């Protein structure tokens, strides 16, 4: 039995196709959870070396076309059952597909883990072995450096604080059961729940901030939105410096969201250009509009465009209401033309407003400044001690789950020995995050805290 692991197998550079590899006993099962074939057939019905066409689906209505390849043990790269999902390249699709796999039960693979498994299962020769060992060990050094950085930073202080809370609970429970005849303090359910909830609250903060932290590294999901033909695609092209969106004068040209990652003075934005929001009878365009609304709902940063040369319209007001209070910037475009817009209305509702002319490339520097200021206002400063990678976030999330389970089970009336196991598991994950070990800590804590012994 081996745990099923998943990772993006293609490089981080945007390419046409991204591959997510799942390996382990439950690879096919997990593949079937995230991949729906066009034919309706299950991956489990395939023999090895077969492929199917369909879609991968994840949370927040994420969906993308994909091809799934099935390899049956031992005929695969790792020698285990393997499913490879080939979806569109670029970070957004691949990350979301990986997330879907993790939500379906896979664990994120560690550096070199596929290769390690390939070795363990006798899929590689001695020479191959030696070259891969070098890679694995250098990865190890990198992760050690990352762990070191985490240990000394603010993140580790936050985590250490939570660990201390949990160790305190754990040591109290352990002393209470290991030294029943010494008068160690009696633990009540209410106290236990109270302490656990404190830890839960604190860790939730770290995880929530961590979601932003991951975004810093992986990019901030940003949508450009507004009525048709206010200049969204032009702005997109301007920011990305590429002709990705099709720019025409006909309203409704962009019918689907387009992904692009751009670097704004060190801040990575994952840009989605959306279809213009308006009521329409065009069936295809309606789907685009719906999708744009969804994209706005899940975005971390919203760039809302308005046309300076026209008065505010019903769709503009709707959009303003939709984004008020969210991390957003109102961009009043076509400032080179005669101003007809009631910009006071916008300024009242949206804190950050900039004037630009996308076509004349005016106001772009102000826009970039504004983007940085919004993202920093949202505590997106990379040095602020928040979780910065998926592995750390995964550890923190599992720890949080275990604390939640401990609270639920205490309320349910489970005995404390079982509760204790959940707390241990939470601690173990947090120590894994910062690179420490668990059991000795508890024992040391017991001795320093309680007067026990015959």
């Amino acid at each position, binding site marked *: 039995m081996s745990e099923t692991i998943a990772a993006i197998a293609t490089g981080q550079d945007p390419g046409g196709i991204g591959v997510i590899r799942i390996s382990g006993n439950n690879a096919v099962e997990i593949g079937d959870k995230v991949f729906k074939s066009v034919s309706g057939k299950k991956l489990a019905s395939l023999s090895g070396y077969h492929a199917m066409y369909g879609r991968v689906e994840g949370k927040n209505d994420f969906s993308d076309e994909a091809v799934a390849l099935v390899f049956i043990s031992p005929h695969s790269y790792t020698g285990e059952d393997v499913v490879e999902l080939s979806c569109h390249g670029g970070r957004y699709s691949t990350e979301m597909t990986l997330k879907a796999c993790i939500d379906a039960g896979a664990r994120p693979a560690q550096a070199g883990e596929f290769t390690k498994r390939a070795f*363990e299962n006798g899929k590689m020769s001695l020479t191959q*072995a030696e070259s891969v060992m*070098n890679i694995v*060990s250098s990865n190890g050094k990198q992760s050690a450096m990352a762990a070191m950085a985490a240990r000394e930073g603010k993140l580790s202080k936050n985590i250490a604080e939570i660990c201390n809370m949990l160790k305190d609970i754990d040591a109290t429970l352990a002393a209470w*059961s290991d030294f*029943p005849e010494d008068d160690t303090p009696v633990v009540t359910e209410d106290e236990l729940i109270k302490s656990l909830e404190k830890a839960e609250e604190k860790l939730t903060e770290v995880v929530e901030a961590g979601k932003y932290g991951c975004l810093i590294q992986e990019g901030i999901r940003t949508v450009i939105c507004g009525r048709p033909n206010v200049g969204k695609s032009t702005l997109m092209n301007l920011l990305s410096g590429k002709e990705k969106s099709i720019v025409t004068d006909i309203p409704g040209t962009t019918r689907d969201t387009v992904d692009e990652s751009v670097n704004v003075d060190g801040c990575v934005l994952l840009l989605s250009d959306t279809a213009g929001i308006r009521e329409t009878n065009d069936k295809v365009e309606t789907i685009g509009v719906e999708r744009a609304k969804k994209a706005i709902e899940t975005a971390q940063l919203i760039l809302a465009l308005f046309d300076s040369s026209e008065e505010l319209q019903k769709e503009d007001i709707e959009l303003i209401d939709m984004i008020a209070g969210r991390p957003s910037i109102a961009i009043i475009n076509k400032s080179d033309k005669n101003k007809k817009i009631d910009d006071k209305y916008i300024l009242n509702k949206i804190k950050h407003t900039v004037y630009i002319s996308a076509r004349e490339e005016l106001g772009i520097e102000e826009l970039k400044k504004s983007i940085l200021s919004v993202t920093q206002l949202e505590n997106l400063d990379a040095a602020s001690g928040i979780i910065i990678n998926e592995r750390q976030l995964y550890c923190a999330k599992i720890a949080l789950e275990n604390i939640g389970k401990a609270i639920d089970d205490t309320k349910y009336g489970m005995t404390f020995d*079982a509760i204790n196991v959940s707390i241990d598991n939470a601690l173990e994950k947090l120590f894994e995050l910062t690179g420490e070990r668990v059991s000795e800590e508890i024992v040391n804590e*017991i001795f320093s805290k309680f007067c026990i012994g*015959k």
Partner: protein
Amino acid sequence: MNYKAEEYDVAVIGAGHAGIEAALASARLGCKTVIFTINMDSVGNLPCNPAIGGTAKGHLVFEIDALGGEMGKAADVSTIQSRMLNRGKGPAVHSMRVQVDRKMYSEYMKHTLEKQENLLLRQAEIVAIERTNNGWTLTTRLGAQHDVSCVIIATGTYLGGRVFVGDVNYESGPDGMFAATQLSQSMKELGLKLRRFKTGTPARVLKSSIDFSGLDEQCGDEDPIPFSSATENEIENKVKCYISWTNDNTKKVIKDNLHRSPLYGGMIEGVGPRYCPSIEDKIVRFPDKPRHQCFIEPCGINTDEMYLQGISSSLPEDVQISLYRTMDGMENVKIMRSAYAIEYDCIDPTEMYPSLEFKEFEGLFGAGQFNGSSGYEEAAAQGLVAGINAARKVKKLEPIIFSRSNSYIGTLIDDLVTKGVMDPYRMMTSRSEYRLVLRQDNAQERLSEIGYEIGLLSKESYEIFKRNIALKYEEIERAKKTTISPSEKLNEILVSRETTPVETGVRLADLLKRPQINYKSLEEVDITRPDIPQQILEQAEVEIKYEGYIKRQMDQINELKRLERKIIPKDIDYDDVKGLRLEATEKLKKFRPINVGQASRISGVSPADVSVLMIYLKAKFHC
């Protein structure tokens, strides 16, 4: 003048709890065995508390029994009060502890050794241990020289023993026995690196000098169960224990006399156990605690000696008298044996393999306090393992390695040999990461197969174990299939136990999953229940109730087993493993782990190092 004496396969030095299990295991596995004791009247002595079991220690006793060891049987024979500790705290921490009659316990053990085929119990002090071409030579003080293949050292506090009471100190073993002094020197010459640990014990006092009228009583359980499945006699509670407390006066006496303690005077160099501090230690370390508890326990049936659990001390005798007399009910107490601290020689257990054989000295094994542990049960567990593996060595069989995932025995030994110890090691439930799986109630299921396969457990016992295990799983199956239909009676039971009533039929197993519900409470509505022993029902209930947790722990265990199956060849050259960090290389060279699982637990070996190591093993040794 030395003389050539009888040769043996296995010789055990010391007949305490470690030595006894070691000698019995070795003899029972067919090796010609001798066990040396410095004094024939101290075999299986309980020089500290007159009790067997306790938290995590109870687990060890059940495990020893499941493997065919003797401790549980001896405890059952001599039990005078039995209690299951932690009853309300969950099955993982249920721990049985019994007060025993010291003399009865010791006599049972001595007689068992005497009756054992292949085994000679011999009074003699071993003064020299030397290597020969194909084994070892042991020399007694009277000049007998025994050639043996394997030696198990189980010297306890006798080795280099020194007793401290105030400013008085002298060479001594426990309970006024001789210490073994020359053997330490011989071990040093051999190249063993010895260190000093210490432990202590409270005074024994005269029962009639205590006024019990104001003290709380502590009685045994109503329906005590035995440790050993072989025990047929009923376990009976024959005595009561009592609880007294220290107070401000006790504190004052101690504080006024601290300067007279050998501990604070710097005379004792040995490191004492953290969990077992002396009363003066407790008062210094926890000055805010107003009072400390003391259990007054009888040392046996035919004696009026009482043990004062919790109040060990190495203060001078006159201070001891004053401090005990400050305590409730002890105003006129008369000491029969004074409290003392004892220092002894032991080794660094990281010099051993998990088989308890020394890495540097083939055929030499250690067990018990000599290995840096503390406690009768911890000693017995190691003795059993050392005895098994010495016998297997003689028979040229692979050693039996117990895993953290199958037993507290495995956890104990792994902690000793992989993490090492800074102070005498005591077993605790919190030391096991798999404690919901490693329970007292399933010790047989976890270990009896090993016991049977190696030949310690008889076929009859094994068959009985197997039958009980099968009964348990049949009952779990039944509980999962049986539907209890809704009825007034059922809902009455549920409501009276503060859990929600049901409207439709509900599976028995789902009812049992509720914390408030147990088998007993459903007696009236569970009409198809088979007639099986209450203990088996309780075991089934634990498996059902904690199913989710047990499954999670089993997943972790399977992950560990994967690593433990990857054996590291003894002749591996870590310098040849490219990609290991320098610290990891050095640690691996020093610890010489037997498998990747053990390697991954060595501090200083990172997960990345483990990956590198696994890849190397795969590439080079195809394992």
